[in-house]
C-alpha cells in the first residue's frame, strides 16, 4: 500500500467534551477522543471499530469538523482542516462527505427526496438549475432507487431505502472521501447486506476513500483493507483487517473477536467473556485503560502505571506492554 498517496492524515486528534451543569462546569471533561492518529490512502477503506462510547463516531465527525477539535491536526489533500476559514471549509466539504447511522433522523422529514439529494448540487452550483432533476435521477438510480422516488417524502421509504437516499445525497457533490458512521447498524441483516454491497460497489466505481465506522467486525471485514480498534478514546490496535482477525495482538481485540456471535454452531472458539464494562471516559483508569478488564496472563503493575504506546508487533501495531 506504500504507493498510495496519503489522502487524509490525522495526527494526535483530541476531542474533549465539557459537561456543564447549572452551577458548575465539571472539572474532568469527557475524553471522547484522546490522541488518535492514522492515515487513509487514496482509494483505501479504513475500518474503525469499537464499542459504544469509545469515541469512534466523534473521530468521524471531528475530522469533518462537524465538531470543533480540542487538539491535533487533520490534513486532507494538503489542507489543514482545522485552520480553514468557514468559507474555505464550506468549499472543501464538497470533497468529503458523511453517511449517518440513523436512517430515520438523517433525512429532513419535510423535504422531498429529490430536493434533499439536490441540495449539495445547489450549494456548490455543480449543475445548471435545469439539469438538476436529471442529475438527481441518475444519482438515485446509482444507489438502486426508482427515479420517481424524488417526488416522495422520506417517511414513505423503508430504513434501507432511506440509507440509500442518504448515500445519494452524499455522492451528489462528488466527494473523494466518505465517512460512513455505522451506516448499516440499524438495518435488518438482509437489507444490511444490500447496503454493504452498494458501498463496496460505489467505492470501486468511484475510487472513493472510506472511513467505515462500525461496532461489527464482520461487516468491517467486508469493506476495509485495514482496521483500527478503539477503546476509551484511544487506538489500541491497528493492522491489515485479515491479520487483525487472524492474529489479534491486543487482548481487547481478542475479546472483541471472541465475543462476536457467529451464525455457525460448529464454530466453537475458546470464548473470552470479559468481566465488567467499559469504564467512563471522563475518568479513564490509570496506565493502560484496559487493565481493569484485562485477562492477559502477564498483566502486571506496569499496566496500571504506564500507558502503553502503539508499537509494531508483526503486521500490527498494538498498544499493549505484553503484546507479542
Amino acid at each position: 500500500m506504500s504507493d498510495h498517496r496519503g489522502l487524509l492524515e490525522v495526527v494526535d486528534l483530541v476531542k474533549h467534551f465539557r459537561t456543564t451543569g447549572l452551577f458548575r462546569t465539571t472539572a474532568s471533561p469527557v475524553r471522547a477522543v484522546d490522541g488518535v492518529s492514522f492515515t487513509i490512502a487514496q482509494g483505501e477503506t479504513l475500518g474503525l471499530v469499537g464499542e459504544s462510547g469509545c469515541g469512534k463516531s466523534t473521530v468521524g465527525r471531528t475530522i469533518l469538523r462537524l465538531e470543533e477539535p480540542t487538539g491535533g491536526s487533520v490534513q486532507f489533500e494538503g489542507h489543514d482542516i482545522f485552520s480553514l476559514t468557514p468559507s474555505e471549509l464550506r468549499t472543501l466539504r464538497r470533497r468529503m462527505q458523511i453517511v449517518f447511522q440513523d436512517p430515520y433522523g438523517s433525512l429532513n422529514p419535510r423535504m422531498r427526496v429529490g430536493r434533499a439529494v439536490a441540495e449539495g448540487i445547489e450549494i456548490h452550483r455543480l449543475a445548471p438549475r435545469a439539469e438538476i432533476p436529471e442529475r438527481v435521477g441518475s444519482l438515485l438510480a446509482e444507489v438502486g432507487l426508482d427515479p420517481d422516488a424524488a417526488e416522495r417524502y422520506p417517511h414513505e421509504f423503508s430504513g434501507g431505502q432511506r440509507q440509500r437516499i442518504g448515500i445519494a445525497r452524499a455522492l451528489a457533490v462528488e466527494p473523494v472521501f466518505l465517512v460512513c458512521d455505522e451506516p448499516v447498524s440499524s438495518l435488518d441483516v438482509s437489507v444490511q447486506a444490500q447496503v454493504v454491497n452498494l458501498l463496496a460497489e460505489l467505492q470501486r466505481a468511484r475510487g472513493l476513500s472510506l472511513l467505515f465506522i462500525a461496532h461489527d467486525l464482520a461487516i468491517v471485514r467486508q469493506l476495509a483493507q485495514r482496521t483500527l480498534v478503539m477503546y476509551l478514546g484511544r487506538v489500541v490496535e491497528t493492522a491489515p483487517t485479515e491479520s487483525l482477525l487472524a492474529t489479534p495482538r491486543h487482548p481487547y481485540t481478542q475479546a472483541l473477536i471472541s465475543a462476536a456471535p457467529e451464525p455457525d454452531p460448529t464454530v466453537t472458539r475458546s470464548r473470552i467473556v470479559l468481566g465488567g464494562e467499559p469504564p467512563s471516559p471522563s475518568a479513564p483508569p490509570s496506565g493502560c485503560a484496559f487493565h481493569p478488564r484485562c485477562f492477559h496472563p502477564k498483566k502486571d503493575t506496569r499496566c496500571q502505571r504506564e500507558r502503553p504506546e502503539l508499537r509494531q508487533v508483526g503486521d500490527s501495531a498494538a498498544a499493549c506492554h505484553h503484546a507479542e
Partner: protein
Amino acid sequence: MLTLVGLVLIAIAAPMLLPDPLAQPDILQGVNQPPGAKHWFGTDQLSRDVLSRVVTGARISLTIAFLAVAVSVTLGAMVGLVAGYWGGWVDAVLMRIVDGALAIPRLFVLLLVVAAWESLPLLVFILLLGTTGWFGTSRLIRGEVLRLKQEPYVRAAEALGAHRIRIVLRHLLPNTAGPLLVAATLGVGNVVLLEAGLSFLGVGVRPPTPTWGGMILDSQEILFVAPWTSIFPGLAIVITVLAVNLFGDALREAVDPRHA
C-alpha cells in the same frame, strides 16, 4: 375551520351588506331595541345596529389580531432560530433579554404606552401588540431548534457545506412549523382577548370605531336594560378564539407530510 373562513368573509363583506355602523341612528326604531326582524341583534343606546357593529368589529379585531400575531410570530421565530442555532453568547444575550421582558407584565406596558399616546394610530397599536408578544414564542422555538440541530439531517446539510442561513431556512424553519402554528393560534386568541380588554379599559382603539371589547365597555351601563348589546360581541370573541384554535390544529396536521 369553516367558522373561521365564515368570520373572515363576513368581516370583508360587511360594508356591502349592512347599514353604516358608525352613525346611522335609527331614530324611528329608538334606542336599546331588543333583537327583532329589523335589527337581528337589536340596537344600542345610540340606536345603532348591534349586528353591523359586531360585524364591523370583526374587521377591526381580526385585522389587529392577525397582523399583531404575524409580527410577534415572525420576531419570535427569528430570535428563537438565531439564539438556538448560533448558540454561545448570541444565545445568552438574546435569552437574557427575553427573560427580562417576560418578567414585565404585558398589560402593564401596553397600558402605559397606550395611555401616554394622545390618539393612537391603529398601525402603532398593532405593532405594540406584536412587539410585546414574541418572548414566549422565541423560547419555544429556541428549545425546538436546540433539539433539531442535533438531528443527523442538519449535520448532513452542514457537511454538504450549506451556509447557516440556508440551514435555518430550509431545514430548521420548516420543522418548527408545528410549534409555530400552535404559538400563532394561541397568540391570535390571546390578542383578540387582549385587544378587547384594552378597549374595555378604554385605552385601545377609540370610539366610535367599533371593536368587540369597546362595544362591551360602551354597553356596560345598560347591561341589564339591553343585555344583547354586550352578549353578541362577547359571543363573537368566544367563537373567534375557539375557531382559531381548532383551525390551528387542523393546519398543523395539514402541513405535516407525514399526515398526508
